[in-house]
């Protein structure tokens, strides 16, 4: 390689430039606190609250304009019905009934998903088994199994739990399994380097490393279970004397007490919001956000 090819392209030697920064004077502001308006706009919960208030106002306005409580009750009427339901203890009792069934189905579903995914990472045939099962059952809406469940388990929470398990298992298993597959090769090698084997390896390396996917699976499973539960209860729910929220909605529709129907729907939404924004958000903040694993 010849020396000349590295020389300055314009041929002549160019002067070097040195700047004395101490002499430099005016500068834009390096750092200043945000103004109150900027701060308020940065608060996510404030922006979301504003959206909720706007929606409630639109609802109220449309309800008053329509002026037909049988079709579309106003926001205030719904709020009143909700309040009455809460004070009289009907809504909490119904919600609790739904909740108990939901938790049972959710827990069993997660347990089955855990067993299936553990088998799937332990052997190739286990992987194939899980993949065949998920591709068969994941597209099948849980509620479609309800008629069959009624024959097998009778009119009771057994049938509902069965469809709930079906709705939870595949979502959780699918996400957990894909999370396990995505765990970096290096981390897997590190785990084996420590001499970890079998369940200890799964528990202390794979599960935490795949936790973002697992959490997504749990969230999706929760949403599926919640929807399936309300839908199943709409079909029947009188079994144990007092049904759940779905039955509450159905019952009041039959009595044409539409504000209370709306109040029932509002309860479903509120519980969903609570679980999403408090329960799962707290888990997220304490785990994957703290670990810097949030994608």
């Amino acid at each position, binding site marked *: 390689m010849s020396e000349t090819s590295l020389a300055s392209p314009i041929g002549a030697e160019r002067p070097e430039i040195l700047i004395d920064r101490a002499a430099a004077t005016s500068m834009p502001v390096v750092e200043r606190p945000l103004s109150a308006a900027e701060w308020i706009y940065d608060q996510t919960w404030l922006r979301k609250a504003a959206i909720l208030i706007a929606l409630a106002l639109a609802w109220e306005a449309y309800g008053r304009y329509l002026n037909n409580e049988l079709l579309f009750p106003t926001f205030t009427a719904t709020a009143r019905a909700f309040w009455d339901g809460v004070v009289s203890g009907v809504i909490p009792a119904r919600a609790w009934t739904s909740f108990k069934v939901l938790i049972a189905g959710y827990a069993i579903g997660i347990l089955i998903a855990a067993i299936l995914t553990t088998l799937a990472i332990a052997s190739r045939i286990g992987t194939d088994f899980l993949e065949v099962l998920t591709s068969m059952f994941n597209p099948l809406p849980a509620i479609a199994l309800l008629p069959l469940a009624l024959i097998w388990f009778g009119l009771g929470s057994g049938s509902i739990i069965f469809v709930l398990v079906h709705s939870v298992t595949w979502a959780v298993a699918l996400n957990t399994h894909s999370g396990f597959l995505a765990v970096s090769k290096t981390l897997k090698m590190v785990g084996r380097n420590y001499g970890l084997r079998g369940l200890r390896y799964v528990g202390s390396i794979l599960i935490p*490393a795949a936790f973002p996917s697992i959490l997504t699976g749990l969230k999706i499973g929760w949403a599926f279970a919640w929807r399936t539960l309300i839908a199943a209860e709409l079909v029947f729910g009188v079994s144990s004397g007092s049904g759940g929220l779905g039955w509450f909605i159905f019952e009041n529709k039959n009595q044409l007490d539409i504000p209370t129907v709306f109040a029932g729907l509002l309860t479903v939404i509120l519980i969903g919001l609570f679980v999403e924004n408090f329960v799962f958000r707290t888990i997220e903040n304490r785990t994957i956000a703290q670990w810097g694993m949030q994608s």
Partner: protein
Amino acid sequence: MNDQSRSAGTAQPLLTVSGVTLQYKTPNHIVTATYRVDFDVHAGDRFILLGPSGCGKSTLLKAVGGYLAPTEGQIRLKGQLIREPGPDRMMVFQEFDQLLPWKTVLQNVVFALESSGRRKGKEARDRAMHYIDKVNLTKFADSYPHTLSGGMKQRVAIARGMAMEPDILLMDEPFAALDALTRRKMQDELLALWADTKFTVLFVTHSIPEAIKIGNRILLLSPHPGQVKAELNGGAKDAAFAALEKRIQQMLFADEIEEAENV
């Protein structure tokens, strides 16, 4: 030449690699990574595996780690055949994601000690802190890995490897993903740590200067498949450093230069 070098070493070697051929499968082919490689590592060695990409040096290190079984030949550590990964051979990887992201720096080192059964409880904690201190990360003991720079992560990985006090530390291009300045600093720190505790390390690199700087013994491998070309002494300084660098360069690239001249 091999027989001579073997009889020259008086003590029993710590690690013996004899006639090792390594093969791995890709979807369409079986690739031979190394062919009949022999070398001995003695206690306290800073042994370097040096070669261009494709010479199977990382594969060789993984085989010593127990992640890969040789198709031919044997790898013995203290006379014992290596069959699977274990805490007596700690790996330090090139990738920054080798720390468990859900554990702090201290927890990472403690977890390694506890899960491998080397130390428990307070003893594990004390030993972990001792080695975190050695790599100058005491202030960051309670930080999560994602808040650390690349160089700091590699230092934690080294602290973790050393805290386990393994028979041999296996380092797979640990500084290759670092910027040049950090890399130089880390090399100096590694040498200082070695001067302190005299651990045995098997170090893979593709950088000739790094090999000469860090190693006391350098194994040169030729590519496709990896075969031993030479086993040299490292640790040269100044003029000798430059001479050795040139010599290695000529050995590694002799074939290529000949090819180029023929064109």
